[in-house]
């Protein structure tokens, strides 16, 4: 590459004419933002797919009753204000004068319709609204939401429920969400009619999505008129495009490129700790290991083994070498900013290979054992590289790990089928409350709850605490219970925490776009420097 | 001043193994209006002379000494450009194979007009007139129609006429004809040679006629030069030279040419040419396990062919109606008696080639019967009967280069049939191979060599040894010598004659060469268009042919001895 560079420099002068002729970087209208990420939204139906890139795109077009600002604080969205009427009912006062992109007015009817749509069988957002019993329309701008049981975090969940236009939906026969698992294309897949700051102007799946500013937006007017998203799956190509000024913003620059990007005058990189913790899951509930039929018991059920594995991991090396400093070593599996996070809890056991070996010997595995590590290779930042490093570190205490790194679609199927002994997972907290972690990862697994608890961890005390937390409206009491759960599980070494992920955005230095820890860009806040 | 005079010409091809001298000190003269024959066997360098004159020697060949004077001017002194002008305008050349000498994508007219325009600087229409005149001159019928046709629409003889017309485009003074009729049938050959003779007379052309065929030399040329391994051995007026050859090589060469005027018991051995042993171990005959002399008095002929027909179907297609199949063999009947040599003669396409492949069941006939010793060998046979028939019926092929597997050792080639029929174990088979090699005058050491280490004649001996390995009673010889030089041909034919007389083999002998037929065969069938037109004793055919076609074949046959 060095050679290339010098060749390039040499030929630079001679070819100035050619450069002028082929000048690729046409000056874009200052009011256009061209951005890219590895993947595209899967659908524009706002209730069909609960997946980050899809939500990202939909959030530009659709609004929610309550929304979060760039600091993730809740703020009024389509609801001006909300208050609990009782333990199980909430009143929402809706913003008036809001219109959809097609011009029709937003009203209480639409709220009822949208929430019920999100509850439909084919919706992927059922979990967020399944405590809701009914939506009552009080008047055109007031609704009351009744829940089946007390639900202290309903407002948080509502930040994910996008509001659609009932009339539009009926007209285009999309009154129930697209069934993503069936072969049908509905109108809402490539068309949208929201109240957001941007309207959908053009949508070619996997190729290009163009958003146009909504002049009738209810909030502070957005500055940038056109947003163009082009998915580029190859990271070097994505970065090359940013470097050659074909893009203004890259959502997911590989961290190894940040240094170089930062060094560039025309590009700036901003980073923020994300509300997501990366950890290793160990199935301690299974009788034997799936990936090692030679063992007739499950070594992972032994806390000493889990502790040995924990202590064998040199998190500093991972942080420095793989994450290039852009990660915060974690002691619990939730991140700062989440209700219930406690700095004191977030401390790690020391990295001590010798003690780890001793623990293994005590547990009866002086020679170690074999196991398979399942790992996604396109979900988290450097996920596969982290797994490789873990494999290497565990091999030093004689645990022979074979790595099975797969694309996320297949990986999640493996996890979902409860087919893994040992896996790497990252958990973001959409509601910014520890309960979100507990209900998915720590509660004993059943159809309704603990669905991601593939560690098959089961603790009656924890389960009781979680049940109480879910209904406790007294926040002090609730926080105490949360802390209790964290203490129990940390002590038990239920999961092996690795680090809190730090996200970085790379953008043209002319662009100002506040980074959001949820990794959801809010383009309505973007501006260009003059 | 001679038209062309070659003085002490030497041409060599340098290679990493040394310099190969294709021509050494060759001198000859050709006068206007004279046909000068160059004759010799393969490797004699006769074609190289033509290429050297034209300046078209193939890389890396070069003229190492001597000079070529054309009309008193040295060709060697000419620039490339001048030489190119000389080619075509003053010297024309025609090649052996008319099928490949013409550009298939241009009409013959275009090729003619292009050449005429280039050399004579005529306008297109004037060139076309001249092209038509040339067509008339080379006696192509309907020149106006044919001039716009493409080469593939012409027959072989007609194409050679087109080639001649092209060579004559710009009225050259000298014409070099390199084996101009070798690829043609006898009847067409005669016409082409006649045409050349007439053109020579009319235009006072000088012609250098390169050929291997003594008959062509005798009938066409005024003077002849005999070449051997790049050197001139003898030169002189044709009649004189043929009647009284001076050099031993010429003498033996001439004696090796099969005579068509009388049958001789054996060919003269051309010992001067290649170290060749005659069949030396007569004891071999005693060893022979064949059963040929049995049944000599039997009433049943050894092989009886009745109403044999075979047609080749054109490839079926979806749209074209399947074309009428062409009958390659049409209702042919003959019988071959014990110890007899049965000849089949005909031109290309006469159907003589499928017959030797029908008898040993390489092809299945459409209809008709073949009986060997009274038993039918057509149709589905028990495996054992088929094997025993195949063992008794062996074949010798035309091309000694392709008829033996180049990747097998000679020993394995000859032993293969012995082992296949289980006549002997491997050790016994190899002993048998040694005996066969002795018998055919090859060294025993040959057994371990591969075919490429042998000359054409030696290969044909190997081929014969393979055929004899199973001790057959019927030997089918399919043009066994037509790819060989005349001297080698004599050796091989002698071997076959010896085999026949010593082992009492029955033979079917296929050839296009009438003199060879006369020398070899007892009975002859003359074939034309898949049918036998005349079947008679061979002496009768040559003295009193009945059928008009046989007569014309005999008349057109180039004959050195007439």
């Amino acid at each position, binding site marked *: 590459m*060095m050679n290339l560079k010098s060749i390039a420099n040499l030929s630079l002068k001679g070819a100035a004419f050619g450069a002028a002729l082929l000048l690729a970087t046409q000056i874009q209208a200052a009011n256009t933002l061209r951005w890219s990420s590895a993947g595209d939204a899967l659908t524009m139906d706002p209730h069909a797919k609960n997946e980050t890139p899809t939500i990202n795109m939909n959030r530009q077009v659709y609004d929610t009753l309550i929304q979060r600002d760039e600091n993730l604080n809740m703020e009024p969205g389509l609801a001006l204000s909300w208050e609990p009427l009782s333990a199980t009912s909430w009143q929402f006062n809706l913003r008036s004068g809001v219109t959809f992109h097609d011009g029709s007015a937003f009203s209480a009817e639409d709220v009822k319709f949208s929430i019920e749509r999100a509850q439909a069988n084919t919706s992927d957002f059922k979990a967020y609204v399944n405590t809701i019993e009914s939506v009552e329309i009080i008047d055109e701008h007031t609704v009351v939401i009744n829940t089946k049981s007390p639900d202290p975090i309903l407002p948080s969940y509502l930040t994910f429920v996008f509001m659609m236009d009932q009339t539009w939906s009926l007209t285009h026969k999309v009154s129930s969400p697209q069934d993503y698992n069936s072969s049908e294309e509905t109108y809402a897949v490539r068309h949208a009619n929201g109240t957001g700051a941007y309207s959908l102007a053009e949508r070619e799946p996997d190729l290009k999505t163009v958003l146009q500013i909504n002049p009738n937006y209810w909030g502070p007017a957005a500055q940038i008129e056109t947003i163009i998203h082009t998915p580029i799956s*190859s990271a*070097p190509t994505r*970065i*090359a495009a940013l*470097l050659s000024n074909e893009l203004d913003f890259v959502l997911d620059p590989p961290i*190894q*490129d940040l*240094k*170089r990007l930062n060094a560039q005058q025309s590009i700036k990189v901003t980073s923020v700790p994300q509300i997501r913790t990366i950890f290793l899951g160990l199935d301690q509930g299974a009788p034997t290991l799936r990936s090692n039929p030679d063992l007739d018991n499950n070594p992972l059920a032994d806390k000493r083994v889990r502790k040995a594995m924990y202590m064998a991991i*040199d998190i500093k*090396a991972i942080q*420095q*070498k*793989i994450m290039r400093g852009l990660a915060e070593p974690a002691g619990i599996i939730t991140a700062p900013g989440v209700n219930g996070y406690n700095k004191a809890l977030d401390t790690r056991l020391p990295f001590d290979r010798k003690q780890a070996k001793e623990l293994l010997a005590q547990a009866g595995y002086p020679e170690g054992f074999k196991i398979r590590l399942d790992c996604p290779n396109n979900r988290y930042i450097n996920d*596969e590289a982290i797994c*490789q*490093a873990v*494999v*290497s*570190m565990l091999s*030093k205490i*004689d645990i*022979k790990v*074979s*790595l*099975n*790194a*797969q694309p996320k679609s*297949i990986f999640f199927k*493996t996890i979902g089928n409860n087919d893994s002994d040992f896996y790497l997972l990252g958990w973001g907290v959409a509601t910014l409350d520890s309960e979100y972690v507990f209900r998915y990862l720590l509660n004993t697994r059943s159809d309704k709850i603990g669905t991601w608890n593939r560690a098959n961890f089961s603790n009656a005390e924890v389960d009781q605490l979680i049940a109480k937390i879910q209904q406790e409206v007294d926040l002090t009491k609730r926080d105490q219970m949360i802390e209790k759960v964290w203490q129990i599980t940390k002590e038990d070494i239920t999961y092996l925490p690795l680090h809190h992920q730090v996200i970085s955005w790379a953008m043209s230095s002319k662009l100002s776009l506040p980074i959001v820890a949820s990794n959801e860009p809010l383009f309505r806040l973007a501006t260009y420097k003059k | 001043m001679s038209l062309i005079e070659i003085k002490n010409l030497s041409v060599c091809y340098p290679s990493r193994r040394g310099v190969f001298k294709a021509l050494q000190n060759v001198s000859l003269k050709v006068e206007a209006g004279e046909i000068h024959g160059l004759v010799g066997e393969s*490797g004699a360098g006769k074609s190289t002379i033509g290429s050297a004159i034209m300046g078209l020697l193939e890389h890396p060949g070069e003229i190492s000494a001597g000079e070529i004077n054309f009309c008193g001017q040295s060709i060697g002194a000419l620039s490339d450009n001048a030489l190119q002008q000389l080619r075509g305008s003053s010297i024309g050349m025609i090649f052996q194979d008319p099928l490949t000498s013409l550009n298939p994508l241009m009409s013959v007219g275009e090729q003619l007009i292009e050449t005429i325009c280039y050399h004579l600087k005529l306008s297109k229409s004037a060139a076309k007139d001249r092209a038509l005149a040339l067509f008339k001159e080379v006696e192509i019928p309907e020149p106006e129609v044919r001039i716009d046709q493409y080469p593939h629409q012409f027959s072989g003889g007609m194409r050679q006429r087109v080639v001649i017309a092209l060579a004559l485009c710009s009225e050259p003074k000298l014409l070099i004809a390199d084996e101009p009729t070798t690829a043609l049938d006898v009847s067409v050959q005669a016409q082409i040679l006649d045409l050349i003779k007439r053109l020579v007379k009319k235009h006072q052309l000088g012609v250098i006629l390169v050929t291997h065929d003594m008959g062509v030399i005798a009938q066409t040329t005024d003077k002849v030069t005999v070449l051997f391994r790049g050197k001139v051995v003898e030169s002189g007026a044709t009649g004189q030279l043929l009647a009284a050859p001076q050099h031993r090589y010429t003498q033996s060469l001439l004696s090796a040419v099969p005579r068509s005027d009388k049958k001789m018991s054996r060919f003269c051995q051309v010992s001067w040419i290649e*170290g060749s042993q005659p069949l030396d171990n007569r004891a071999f005959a005693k060893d022979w396990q064949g059963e040929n002399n049995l049944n000599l008095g039997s009433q049943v002929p050894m092989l009886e062919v009745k109403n044999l027909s075979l047609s080749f179907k054109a490839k079926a297609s979806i749209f074209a109606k399947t074309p009428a199949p062409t009958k390659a063999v049409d209702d042919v009947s003959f019988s071959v008696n014990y110890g007899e040599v049965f000849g089949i003669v005909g031109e290309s396409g006469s159907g003589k080639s499928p017959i030797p*492949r029908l008898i*040993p*069941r*390489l092809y299945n006939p459409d209809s008709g019967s073949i009986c060997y010793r009274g038993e039918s060998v057509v149709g589905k046979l028990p495996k054992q009967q*088929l094997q025993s028939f*195949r063992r008794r019926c*062996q*074949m010798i*092929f035309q*091309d000694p280069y*392709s*008829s*033996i*597997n*180049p*990747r097998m050792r000679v020993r394995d080639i000859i032993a*293969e049939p012995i082992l*296949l029929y289980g006549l002997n174990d491997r050790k016994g088979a190899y002993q048998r191979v040694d005996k066969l090699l002795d018998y055919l005058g090859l*060294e*025993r*050491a040959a057994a*371990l060599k591969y075919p490429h*280490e*042998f*000359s054409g004649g030696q290969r044909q001996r190997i*081929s014969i040894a*393979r055929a004899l390995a199973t001790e057959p009673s019927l030997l089918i010889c399919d043009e066994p010598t037509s790819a060989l030089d005349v001297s080698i041909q004599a050796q091989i034919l002698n071997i076959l004659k010896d085999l026949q007389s010593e082992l009492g083999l029955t033979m079917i002998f296929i050839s296009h060469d009438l003199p060879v037929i006369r020398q070899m065969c007892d009975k002859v069938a003359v074939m034309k268009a898949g049918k036998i037109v005349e079947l008679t004793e061979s002496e009768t055919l040559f003295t009193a042919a009945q059928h008009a076609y046989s007569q014309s074949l005999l008349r057109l046959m180039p004959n050195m001895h007439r």
Partner: protein
Amino acid sequence: MEHNNSHSQGVQQVPQMQKMTLIRKIADSDIFYSFCRSPLIVFAAVLCLSLVLSALFAPWLAPYDPFDQSSLSLWAANLAPLSTDDDGFFYLMGTDNQGRDILSAIMYGMRTSLIVGLAAVAFALVLGTSLGLVAAFFGGWVDSLLMRIADIQLSFPAILVALLIDGVAKAVLGSSQMESLAIYVLILAIGLSEWVQFARAVRAAALVEQRKEYVQAARIMGVPVPLIMLRHILPNVISPILVIATISIAVAIITEATLSFLGVGIPQTEPSLGTLIRVGGNYLMSGEWWITLFPGLTLVLLVLSFNLLGDWLRDALNPRLK
């Protein structure tokens, strides 16, 4: 040129003669001559040989074992070429993001690449040659069927066929099994995409051979068909097979690398050159060029050496170019 007489020696010496001449024959052969005359080809052969040998003997030659997880130190990751890590280990070509020595990884990666390439070509060779022989010898509908299949397959380039086979395998096997079987699927996919070359060449050559009279002689003798094909025809169609095989190895290696680059080939745990390039490609823009450039360069040299040899062999074995 007739120089046959030089070989007429005594019968007794024959076995010795054979041995003597074998070496002399090789040294004297036209192929060897044309080989020595071209420095480029000698270079290609030396290059090819040294690459293949270094892959073959990687466990002994490589400075480190890149598959020995326990020897990797993450702290030695991303070192530039010619650097030494904290423990004093030296890395000629630098290390990758796991601290793996690039030089060793290349040697082992080349092993995987070569194994896939050679196995795929061997598979294609056996399949293509036998089908080509069968088609040539039986003719008729067998020939038509086989050649039509070949035609249709030819309309889909190797890479596409290999991708399709890979996709189908993925659908049939499921992804977790796919992981362990990836290398076999890859060999199968590349092999199946290359057999046509062999089949067509062998068929064409066999048709030419078959018209020759030595085959007719064998048929008249009643030699069984399989024996004719194996003993008579096959040895005579070896040279086109040889040429295609050499070039096919180059094609197979590049196809494997491409598939691995596209992420459907060899998994990262036992990386081939293509996998190394794919993984390293992620670091190209960040200035850690050695992670992708050295494997890339090795791949190019390996493929080039096979291509040069194949190209030369094609001319050297072509009787008409002599």
